[in-house]
């Protein structure tokens, strides 16, 4: 066990865990941030996507010891305020994307990262950026439309 100081969603949080523990399980088991989901543990489904310094990353593949002082953002940390959701979350609501909903927080984290580096992505850009996120319910068309909806609104 070892103590780690983590910067998560703008707060300093400390945990005492095995250094090899993936960030995913630190978030879920130790910090009770359960919006980051476990889907495969192999970096193959994207359900556990979080941001490390603003870039989307699979938290199941990142040992907590490798995080250091880098800033982590989870789905719980992207809202504009306590009463206002992130524009990407709003688009997801507007287009009624979710079915079972389990993968959607990971989808949103990938989409937020994509739109940050590419505010006006083409269909191909979206497919490339999102193809690592599996949705078993098959909501891909709505996910793409929601991302395009955000891109269009931000242009106005």
């Amino acid at each position, binding site marked *: 066990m070892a103590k780690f100081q983590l910067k998560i969603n703008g707060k300093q949080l400390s945990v005492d865990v095995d250094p090899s523990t993936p960030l995913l399980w630190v978030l879920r088991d*130790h910090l009770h941030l*359960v*919006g980051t989901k476990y889907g495969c543990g192999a970096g193959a489904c994207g359900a556990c996507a979080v941001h490390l310094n603003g870039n989307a990353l699979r938290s199941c593949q990142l040992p907590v010891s490798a995080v250091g002082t880098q800033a982590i953002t989870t789905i719980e940390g992207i809202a504009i305020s306590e009463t206002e959701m992130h524009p990407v979350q709003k688009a997801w609501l507007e287009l*009624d994307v979710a079915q079972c909903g389990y993968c959607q*927080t990971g989808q949103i984290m990938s989409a937020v990262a994509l739109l940050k580096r590419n505010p006006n992505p083409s269909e191909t850009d979206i497919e490339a950026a999102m193809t690592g996120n599996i949705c078993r319910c098959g909501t891909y068309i709505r996910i793409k439309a929601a991302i395009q909806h955000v891109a269009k609104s931000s242009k106005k």
Partner: protein
Amino acid sequence: MEKANKNQSRRSFLKVTSLTGGGMMIGISWFANLIPNEAMAHVADNNNWVQLNGFIQITPDNQVKIFNPNPEFGTNVMTSLPMMVNEELEADWSKVIVEMGDYDTPRFKSQFTGGSRAMAMAWMPLRTAGATARLMLMQAAANQWGVPLIELRTEKGEIVHINSGKRLTYGAVATAAAKLPKPEKVALKKPGEFSLLGTPQKNKVGKEILSGQSLFTMDYQVEGMLIAMVIHPPAFGMQLKSLDASEALKMPGIKDVFEFQVYKDGYVKAGFDTRTFNKLIAVVGNSTWEVMNARKKVVAEWEPIQTTKEPVMARGGRRDEMIPAGLESTDEHLRQMHEMQKKPMRVARKDGDPEAAFKNANRVIERTYTAPFLAHNPMEPISCFAHITDEKAFFVAPIQIPEMMKQNIVANLDIKPEQLEMKLARMGGGFGRRAYGHYIVEAGHISKKVKAPVKLIYTREDDMTNGIYRPTYIMTYKAAIDENNNVTALHVIGGGFPESPLHENRFPAGAIDNYLAESWELPTNITIGAYRAPRSNFNASAEQSFLDELAEAVGKDPLDFRIDLLKKAKANPVGKNNDYDASRYIGVLELLKEKSNWGSPATKNAKRGVSAYFCHASYAAHVVDVTMKNGQPYVEKVVTAMDCGFVVNPEGAKNMVEGAVIDGIGNALYGELVLEKGATQQKNLNNYRIIRHREAPKKIEVHFVQNNIDPTGLGEPPFPPVFAAVANALYKAIGKRLYHQPYIKELNKQKA
């Protein structure tokens, strides 16, 4: 570390949140929310609620809560079922709170997520619940004002006295209303009078889902909870011989490692009691990662099973289920299935004189179709929370039909029926997998042993290799064609491990004068269960691929060919027990023909395929446009026509159909679980191929037949016909028919 856990015995919490459009609403999170520092107004849920009936509660300040009875695995019953209640209740839908009901089937009449039955089962009771409550509220207001009931109307949660304009909120009279006798009869609105049903409504729990709140079993945490995992044999046909837990027990954070038996010897399994391995090893510890590490240190010896028989009491009465010894493989399954197809089998249906028709045929076409085992792979792997104490057996379970598990839990955990308490978590997908709740019993055993609250988690590998799969199937269609290009006879043989896919009374039965359907099954030790439109999902692919080939053989347009056959079945049905309505079937095909602009592809490179099917009480038909991208097929666009009767929530309905279409394309092209020496060769999502973003169509158009027939389901019906639509379009694109799923494998095999 902040401790934000809430004890599971506390009731639900209300959480004040804001709608994105402004305006406040009360959102519900029935699990304690675990996010530290989030502004929460904890209000004990049952403080001021006045219960009008099992589905409706109202507070004096006019908050209205509607309970969704059915476990939610993504079909949006959390929205559509409460909509039915509220149509009649006439509360303000934008302010209505929706809450997942706990397991209490007597109260909710039915809690059944499966068979696409939610709409049909809820249609009368839920509207009646709404209408009954409304009438009681109106009567209470009438009593208070001293006016006759006929002078009142209701509007958005208020009762209005028409003449005077006086108003009372539902909340103001709820307490009085609850004391009134329940009206024996209430009138329900007719479809033309609906104001909420039939209008597109967004997911009532959308915000909770998208903000990552604790909704799923995987998310559930309580103080003192331990994490458990189970280790099962490395292959079907194997069992635990011995366990050495000594090294694993030394690992940090580990509380216990032990073997246990899931079902008692001689336990008579009911229809949904299917389980894989009866002897498992449990590894229990403080945290997921510690348990994952410790399980690697478990030393277990495995041995081959002997052929056994397990008693089953299910459809068709009590029987013994044969579990054969041996390590099975996909290659051997295929070999045996092809062998079986050559023999005469059990006759399931016979019309006319098929032998004579085949003898006199001008031409005979015969084709054989196969499909592999499929793993459900819901995004949330299997999990269950259990806390068994002397007083009660408490579960948070992702389970499709909780009532079906009751006798199993009671019998195998030695608890009294009245000790059972179960919260029904939102499920991260199900597709049939979560109808089989053996994991509830597993979690119960573990909690009993360690005497603590336990969350059992399957890893993705556990979920995929310890599955209850879609069976592997084969089907052969044979048609007799006369010199005038009439189809005079049809012979279908279906079989599989361990069940046949055959639906002998489905179309084209009823449209063919001479018809023979035969069926067989062989035992296997691979566990199988319902998978989105069981049997239909393969039956449709074979039948609708064959009809396409038959249409071509007799020189007819494939869509018109189907319509012509159905017209014949409508005018002059052959045989008895045809289990489809030819008129509605024709209706979806005609709608599809019109909306797809059949005959002209969407883009000049695309090739089109058509397919239709009827199952689970709804009719579905698709036209898919396929292009080839770097030698690989890509479904670019799909046009769908559906007849599911009255469409309760068009937005949710469209989403369901889109999802089923994408799932169908993915499974048709990529889905397979291969077995070698009893072990699944796919163990995680890196080699079990599920359709991804870039493989999904750019566009899916969904059109509904407009009618006022009582609603039926959408979870399954759009799925089965996708497979053949893809195969039929692929034929046009590459000039070759594909018969064996997954099609991409056959395609690439042919190329090589």
